[in-house]
């Protein structure tokens, strides 16, 4: 049985998880910056322990349409990793990635096949960078599934990590990071959220690999 109780974590354990989130998000953002070949500033990552009712509203309203990319983790650490962004941001990223030849479809919340596959590739690269840095740091093997994409209400997409956390407690650990792409300008902020949800036993492995 796991030694970790999310509702009763020591500040040391909490700090370690936060730092892992920071390092992962930092590396993911570097990968994003290289992919877009432009400077991407990273905001100060925030780690929040939220109740289920607070989770969807952290990112906006429950019914706001979001693009969600989900990857399953296996290997030494089981769990899920999620990357969330506004559909406008996703369109922006695709357009950037394709050098303005992305043929963006006009409708805000619908994505054609090319766009979908580009978004999944972005998710793949970002999540890969995030997890690689965690793997190097902890010396654990982190394998990841192919990315899955969904465009739907924020609350419905966030059900997936919430249910994962629901198995172990009544709170969700959210690591949120904002990006800012200088070229794009203020109204088209490239902004996203990372959510990493290890299974409870995996917390033990992560923490003990770091000697906590």
């Amino acid at each position, binding site marked *: 049985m796991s030694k970790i109780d999310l509702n009763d974590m020591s500040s040391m354990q909490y700090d370690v998880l936060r730092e892992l989130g920071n390092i992962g998000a930092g590396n993911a953002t570097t990968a994003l910056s290289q992919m877009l070949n432009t400077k991407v500033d990273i905001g100060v990552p925030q780690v929040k322990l939220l109740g*289920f*009712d607070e*989770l*969807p509203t952290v990112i906006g309203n*429950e*019914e706001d*349409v979001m693009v*969600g990319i*989900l990857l*399953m983790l296996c290997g030494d650490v089981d769990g*899920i990793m999620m990357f969330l962004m506004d559909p406008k941001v996703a369109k922006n990223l695709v357009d950037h990635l394709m050098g303005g030849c992305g043929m963006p479809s006009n409708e805000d*919340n*619908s994505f054609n096949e090319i766009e979908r596959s580009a978004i999944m590739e972005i998710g793949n690269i970002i999540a890969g960078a995030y997890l690689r840095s965690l793997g190097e740091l902890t010396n654990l093997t982190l394998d990841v*599934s*192919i990315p*899955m994409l*969904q*465009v*739907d*209400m*924020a*609350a*419905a*997409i*966030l*059900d*997936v990590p*919430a*249910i*994962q956390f*629901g*198995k*172990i*407690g*009544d709170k969700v650990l959210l690591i949120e990071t904002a990006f800012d792409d200088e070229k794009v300008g203020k109204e088209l902020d490239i902004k996203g959220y990372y959510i990493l949800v290890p299974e409870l036993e995996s917390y033990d492995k992560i923490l003990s690999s770091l000697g906590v």
Partner: protein
Amino acid sequence: MGEIIKVGMADLKTCTMPDGLTTLGLGSCVGVVLYDPVTKVSGLLHLMLPDSTRIKNNQNVAKFADTGIVELCEQMKKMGAVQSRLVAKIAGGAQMFSFGNNTNDIMSVGKKNVEATKTILARMGIKLVAEDTGLNYGRTIIFDSVTGKLMIRSVGKQDKEI
């Protein structure tokens, strides 16, 4: 409809006529409406997981199908509902993410939630009169205690009523 009471994730609420109940963005979670057509006492549960006995940390009864439906029924009985008269409408239980035919525990929780909900309802003798479950999209539901209708709203789809 009077005031519309919002029910969060892993939560349950009751109301009487003319008020309504709503929960926003059900994904794999299931929304369970119980309704007494005579007294119009109504309840809504937003459950996340099928079975409380398989989870160690299970103090929050509204998180699970088994304990949540029982608790909702008890609260409604205190408000004048009669269990044998209750009818149920359920929505949600979608599979939000998938690749190919590959499904695992995390992906199939929606289906399990729906199955568990139906089992519990049958065991309690509550008739399931309508459902809009499964598939792969999120649902917002709004229940009107005056008409007994459940309105379902999804992204890019027409509103529907069950």
